[in-house]
């Protein structure tokens, strides 16, 4: 492990000029300095990790590298030549391409069309498609990464992982625009992949290195250390240093990212308070079945956090939604305190004291343009009403109390929630179920997705606090580590069925490997 806080990199005149070099990049947005003098060097045939918390400037930097953002100051050099990148096409001409975090494929076109989109070349003559050529061009790209996807399959019929392969194949076409090895940027490529698919992706990344340089961005530091040769760390829009990955530990990287000693008690284990005697189960699920799952039975006790883990397609998300009445069930039942739950709609679930935090925060979790206050009181209208009418005063005092209690950072309670950072948005979404003081069961579907480490830690602390107050939690964690770290007990699902139930008490946690065995 070698940490050195770098000064500005010296341009190397030798033949081994960096594939890409960034010097003192600055970008202002109204009120924010997104980039404040970033330096970055990507050498040929190297996988460079880019780490930093949300708001550290990663995405602005990446956008600048593919011509989507024009920096206010600073320089970008490609193979010793200073360039100005005005558009994605411009960047591609210089051999820089990006696989975007939100997949950027046209779902109703074939994989082949997506791969050649915008640069069809010989695939289109005088505006007329030549499907054979098109197919061949696409196949050449897919062959580069050894993928066996049918080029003429419609893209939306492919799995997420396959679609990602199509994206990589698409980006690799920039090789044809330049005679040099390209620079491929992978922005959060693993955030929606399950472990098996991640391993396939990493194989691809290692293969890419043979003919390209790669910039790899991920929230998961273990992944960054696993696949990268070197990691560059950003903090507050500045480059704060660089880590050689050999032998480095995530905790060290983490410390550089947050700029202080990271909390060792990441999952707030020490905050756990156990009741003297085991309480009766609050939620009992018996033989629940739906479209994608069957025979699901488990108990959750008050104050307990139950993790459900499984790969993509295990059906765990649907179980979670079914308990909230958002997904139809065909058999089985769920009892809350011995009383049968009505699973036919979300209204009865709310009334029974169940809260649900959906995975897609921006789409299902919040109403973006609506205020923090209105978002917080969305589910429990009664809490802000006097009789049938909304009482602004009651709402104000209620919302202010919770803003204070969860230390939500918002300029005002009337601020539109979409202007808050992800972590603060998520706290508002959680508060929605807490304002009426009647929540007994929380269903958390990827509650920390897309949050940086600091914000995640706060969500964990909140979960512990709620558990200590007797709230039962079902957690679909963002990673196995998180599931193991936060849960008291873990249910493993595979192919719509439960395959194992593993105790997970503090101090006696199972290893990820124990769980993976049951997941496939």
């Amino acid at each position, binding site marked *: 492990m070698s940490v050195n806080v770098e000064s500005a990199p010296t341009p190397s005149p030798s033949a081994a000029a960096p594939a890409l070099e960034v010097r003192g990049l600055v970008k202002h947005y109204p009120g924010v300095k997104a980039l404040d003098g970033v330096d970055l060097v990507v050498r040929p045939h190297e996988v460079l990790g880019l780490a930093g918390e949300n708001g550290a400037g990663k995405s602005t930097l990446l956008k600048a590298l593919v011509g989507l953002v024009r920096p206010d100051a600073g320089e970008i050099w490609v193979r010793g030549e200073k360039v100005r990148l005005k558009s994605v096409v411009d960047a591609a001409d210089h051999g820089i391409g990006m696989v975007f975090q939100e997949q950027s494929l046209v779902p109703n076109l074939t994989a082949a069309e997506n791969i050649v989109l915008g640069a069809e070349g010989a695939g289109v003559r005088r505006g007329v498609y030549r499907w054979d050529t098109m197919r061949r061009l696409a196949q050449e790209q897919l062959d580069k990464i050894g993928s066996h996807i049918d080029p003429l399959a419609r893209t939306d019929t492919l799995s997420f992982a396959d679609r990602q392969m199509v994206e990589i194949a698409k980006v690799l076409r920039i090789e044809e625009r330049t005679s040099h090895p390209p620079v491929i940027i992978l922005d959060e490529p693993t955030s929606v992949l399950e472990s*098996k698919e991640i391993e396939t992706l990493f194989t691809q990344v290692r293969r890419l290195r043979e003919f390209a340089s790669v910039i790899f961005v991920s929230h998961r530091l273990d992944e960054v250390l696993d696949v990268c040769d070197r990691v560059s760390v950003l903090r507050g829009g500045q480059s704060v240093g660089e880590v050689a990955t050999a032998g480095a530990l995530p905790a060290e990287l983490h410390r550089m990212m947050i700029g202080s000693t990271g909390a060792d008690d990441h999952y707030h284990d020490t905050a756990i308070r156990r009741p003297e005697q085991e309480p009766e189960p609050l939620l009992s699920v018996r033989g629940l079945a739906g479209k994608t799952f069957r025979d699901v039975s488990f108990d959750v006790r008050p104050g307990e956090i139950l993790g459900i883990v499984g790969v993509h397609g295990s059906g765990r998300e649907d179980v979670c939604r079914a308990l909230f009445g958002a997904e139809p069930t065909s058999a089985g039942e769920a009892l809350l305190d011995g009383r049968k739950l009505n699973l036919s709609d979300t209204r009865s679930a709310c009334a029974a004291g169940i809260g649900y935090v959906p995975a897609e925060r921006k789409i299902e979790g919040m109403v973006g343009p609506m205020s923090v206050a209105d978002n917080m009181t969305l589910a429990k209208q009664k809490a802000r009403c006097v009789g049938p009418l909304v009482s602004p005063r009651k709402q104000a005092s209620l919302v202010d109390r919770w803003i204070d209690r969860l230390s939500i950072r918002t300029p005002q309670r009337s601020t539109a929630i979409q202007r808050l950072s992800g972590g603060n948005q998520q706290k508002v979404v959680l508060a929605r179920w807490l304002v009426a003081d009647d929540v007994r069961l929380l269903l958390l579907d990827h509650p920390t997705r897309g949050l940086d480490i600091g914000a995640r830690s706060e969500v964990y602390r909140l979960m512990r606090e709620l558990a200590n107050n007797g709230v039962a939690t079902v957690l679909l964690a963002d990673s196995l580590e998180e599931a193991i770290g936060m849960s008291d007990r873990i249910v493993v699902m595979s192919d719509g069925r439960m395959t194992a139930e593993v105790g997970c008490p503090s101090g006696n946690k199972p290893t990820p490997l124990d769980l993976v065995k049951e997941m496939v």
Partner: protein
Amino acid sequence: MTSPAEDVDVVAARPRPRRGVSLRDAGPPIALVVVFLVFSVLSPEFRTLGNVQNIMDTASVLAVVTCGITFVLLMGSIDLSAPGIMGAAAIAVALLVANNRNDHDLGLAGVLVAVLLAAALGCLSGLALVLLKVPSFMTTLGVSAVGLGVATLMFNGVQPNISDDLLASLAVDRLLGFSYLTWLAAACVLVGYLIQRYSRLGRYAYAIGGAEEVLSLSGVKVAPYKVAIFTLAGAFYGLAGVMVTSQLSAGLVQAGKGYDFAAITAAVVGGTLLTGGRGGVLHSAVGVLLVTVLTNGLVQIGVSPYWQGGVQGLIVVVAVAAAVLPQRRRNQVVK
């Protein structure tokens, strides 16, 4: 790492790529056959050759309009300009070929000019959409009014009756039992299909309906393609207007009345989604036949023609409901 791959050999179940025919694609043709058979059983008049020819002739104008509107719908836009553009083209062609109002006798060139005028009006819709960023719903409604205005100006209070032999004969003379207009419509559908399947313009219409921002990120300038699609649609409407003039032997401002709604109905019934990206010219052609057979059949079995408007409205609501049925889920948001 979350999982060491060496231990994992089982591949999680994933959807296999499907390239076969889905229910949405197969549904309308099946419905067409069923409806046709039902009416054939119920009504002896319906199943005569003469009536089938009649159905095809009736469907011809709608088929050409629907062909044009399909491209716009594929992009996820909507086009309400057909009535105005058809009216303008109908009057224009009536005044340019041999007629009772003036001494022009341009023949086919007159038809070409009328279609070009229509294409220009379509282009106007597209330009307003991409330059002024006005939703297509409004721009095309406006262009329809402009078209009607142009038509009314040219009409000038006196109805132009045509005496052009070629144009008059199109609706009357028959080849293999079907009028030339029917063959013209069939040719339009074929051309439309080829554009949709083999031209960049057609494929990009799909892409725009599927994920427009991806095109921009791939370095494609989307605006020219949008304008081109509206222009193409306008040309189809213009040809349809010419066909109406041929049928009536006279130019009418109202030549395109009701075709906007009828064409959208037909396209949706055939399986072209209003949200864009799915369906196509062949789907829409089946939809045209389905709607026409239904209307014709209801008359043949004795349902009053006064019912037709209402029935057509019901059909479109039911068809849209059926089209979205496969994707329906709990708590779906519809606006």
